């Protein structure tokens, strides 16, 4: 479905980003694998993609840094000459109760999870406008829609991503660039492994499909939005959460 497309996936060394990078490659895309710190894991993803017969390389970049993002997008364009798909996935958590949250915790999460999406979108908009083609998929979260105690920073960032998705969709639509979001629910990754057994049980009880999601559950929906099959969708947020939130 994505034969020959060039995709950039941020935060692609682990978790949902890794699954997205591999799924896009399985569907035919060549992939630029961005990572912040996990070089060895990013290289593993690259090797796996190459074993599928696709091209891939890893680029270290902090998405919260405009200079890093520009360097990353330039590297992608220098190698492949175009950029069809951007998946804004890179994200971190610094959970704390609102009353105890430090300014640094707030800033770190907003910078990576929200500003990072802005910077990457801005950087790829230029080549995509010239191409008159682009698919941008942002990884939001159901908590950005319903809130979550202990995650004021993360929830604010994810809700921000949903708003940014709608605005970018409106601004870029005339150039045939679509911008959509996916809002995962409880997905089994390093990020959610940090939760206690009790928290997990509470979450599971809220999921009609009665199981936690796997990164591949999210990756397949991202791949759909990144494909031409979703060409008439823009500004939307698709929930991939086992029915947890039905807005």
């Amino acid at each position, binding site marked *: 479905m994505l034969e020959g497309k060039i995709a950039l996936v941020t935060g692609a060394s682990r978790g949902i980003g890794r699954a997205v990078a591999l799924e896009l490659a399985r569907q035919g895309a060549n992939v630029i694998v961005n990572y912040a710190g996990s070089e060895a894991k990013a290289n593993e993803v690259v090797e796996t993609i190459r074993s599928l017969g696709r091209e891939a390389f890893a680029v270290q970049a902090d998405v919260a840094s405009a200079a890093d993002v520009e360097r990353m997008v330039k590297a992608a364009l220098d190698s492949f000459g175009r950029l069809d798909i951007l998946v804004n996935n890179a994200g971190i958590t610094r959970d704390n109760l609102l009353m105890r949250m430090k300014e640094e915790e707030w800033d770190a999460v907003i910078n990576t999870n929200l500003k990072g999406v802005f910077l990457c979108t801005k950087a790829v908009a*230029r080549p995509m*406008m*010239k191409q008159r083609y682009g698919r941008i998929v942002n990884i939001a979260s159901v908590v950005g829609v319903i809130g979550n105690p202990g995650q004021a920073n993360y929830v604010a960032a994810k809700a921000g991503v949903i708003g940014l998705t709608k605005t970018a969709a409106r*601004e870029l639509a*005339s*150039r045939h660039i679509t911008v959509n979001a996916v809002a995962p629910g409880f997905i089994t990754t390093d990020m959610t492994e940090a939760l206690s057994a009790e928290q997990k049980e509470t979450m599971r009880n809220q999921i009609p499909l009665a199981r936690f999601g796997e990164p591949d559950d999210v990756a397949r929906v991202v791949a759909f939005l990144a494909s031409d099959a979703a060409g008439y969708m823009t500004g939307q947020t698709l929930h991939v959460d086992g029915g947890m939130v039905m807005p």
Partner: protein
Amino acid sequence: MADVLERVTKIIVDRLGVDESQVTLEASFKDDLGADSLDIVELVMELEDEFNMEISDEEAEKIVTVGDAVNYIKSRL
């Protein structure tokens, strides 16, 4: 120097689909040539490529008329 105006005019005609006769130095991209804000961003991008220069967002915002664009480019060549 007429060359700059010629090259700028060609880009404007191609991008905005206006008639060459409409592209005068006094013509405003927005008011006279029907460009919206995104068209202007794109025009600036194409001018950057055509003349192999970087035009900062601050400078780009000052470009209102065709003459502004031509003068800015001449000042940088």
